[in-house]
């Protein structure tokens, strides 16, 4: 195969970010624009100062041209994340987060830190949550089984990170467990 080994099993984080950028986010436009058709759909019209839903790629583009303010999603604030962090550190299972929260949070906070009340606090909370969740997926590793893996509420970036070696390890287990698959005749 022509692809380097790490790219065969998984997509790259940047590709996930691209996918996540199709999600809609609320903005407060600072310029007026008629409803406009894009390849992924028609968005607008933008009528300041009323809110409007556009994809993240469009919101970040407008934001960088200072043509809108981004309204943070309802899960991307200090109170919500603090509550989730407590759940994450006390409970056994993964707490429920939006599936692409890592990508969305990073893109929004990186491009529009001035639209968040406390961006540094949010960043450090996200980092804490990520580390707590990593510790749990590591735990899952020791319970690895050849036929199934159940880690509910794992989000896309985390799945992507562990996918290559989890599937390889499960593949090895299938090979070395007797009768995991129908016995093949070698001779």
């Amino acid at each position, binding site marked *: 195969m022509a692809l380097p*080994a*790490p790219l065969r*099993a*998984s997509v*790259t*984080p*940047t590709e996930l*970010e691209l996918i996540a950028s199709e999600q809609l986010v609320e903005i407060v436009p600072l310029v007026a624009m008629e409803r406009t058709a894009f390849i992924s759909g028609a968005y607008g019209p933008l009528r300041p100062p009323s809110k409007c839903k556009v994809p993240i790629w469009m919101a*970040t*583009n407008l934001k*960088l041209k200072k043509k809108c303010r981004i309204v943070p999603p309802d899960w991307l604030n200090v109170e919500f994340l603090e509550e989730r962090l407590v759940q994450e550190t006390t409970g056994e299972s993964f707490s429920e987060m939006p599936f692409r929260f*890592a990508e969305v949070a*990073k*893109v929004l906070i*990186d*491009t529009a830190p001035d639209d968040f009340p406390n961006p540094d606090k949010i960043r450090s909370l996200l980092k804490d949550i*990520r580390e707590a969740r990593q510790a749990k997926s*590591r735990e899952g*590793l*020791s319970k*690895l089984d050849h036929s199934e893996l159940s880690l509910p509420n794992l989000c896309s*970036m985390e799945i*992507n*990170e*562990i*996918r*290559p*070696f989890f599937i*390889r*390890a499960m*593949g*090895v*287990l299938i*090979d*070395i*467990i*007797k009768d995991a698959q129908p*016995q*093949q005749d*070698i*001779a």
Partner: protein
Amino acid sequence: MEDDYYSIDSILAENQKIQCTFKVSVPDMGHLDGGNERDIKAQSKVQVPLWMAYILIYSDYADFTIPTSFSARVRSALNAEPRSVRLSNLVGQGGMWYGFGRMIMHLLNDDAAKEMSDLLVKTFRGRLPEVIDQAQHFASIHASTADSGVGGGALGGDHAAMAFREGLDGTERELFALTQASTRSTKRWYEASDRGRRS
């Protein structure tokens, strides 16, 4: 490690010698043992490659003994502490200990095969978290030194960790590399700033 004819891993795993005791005399085949004898006599012990052993064993020309990679000593060491055994020493650098074990397992009958499988699984499970931990640890060291422009001088870790890394077999090395690559790319993404790329 699968039985695919074209699988390189499978070919590498077969590249191990196994001691066979011939039950019959084979004329003109003495060169297999590398000796000067012209014939292989019955009851003589010959080291043959695993890929050749199959046909000898299945055709009932020879019996085999469990290779030293899976001897009682190795087994009890693995039972005591899977992480302290150097698998790479047992099969040679880059060898496939699990693949070799799996092929031996297929040659054995039910009970012995079950025992072999249990040994392999227990060892793999016992070593896996350590393999992944170290790979992730190394990925983060490399990512941060690469960013700051410092070479890989800060590597090393303590002695036990290094010994463990050297003892990884081919399959574990592959896992190590996979983990390192994915952890590194994820970490890089988390640390990179977005603004420059978009504006």
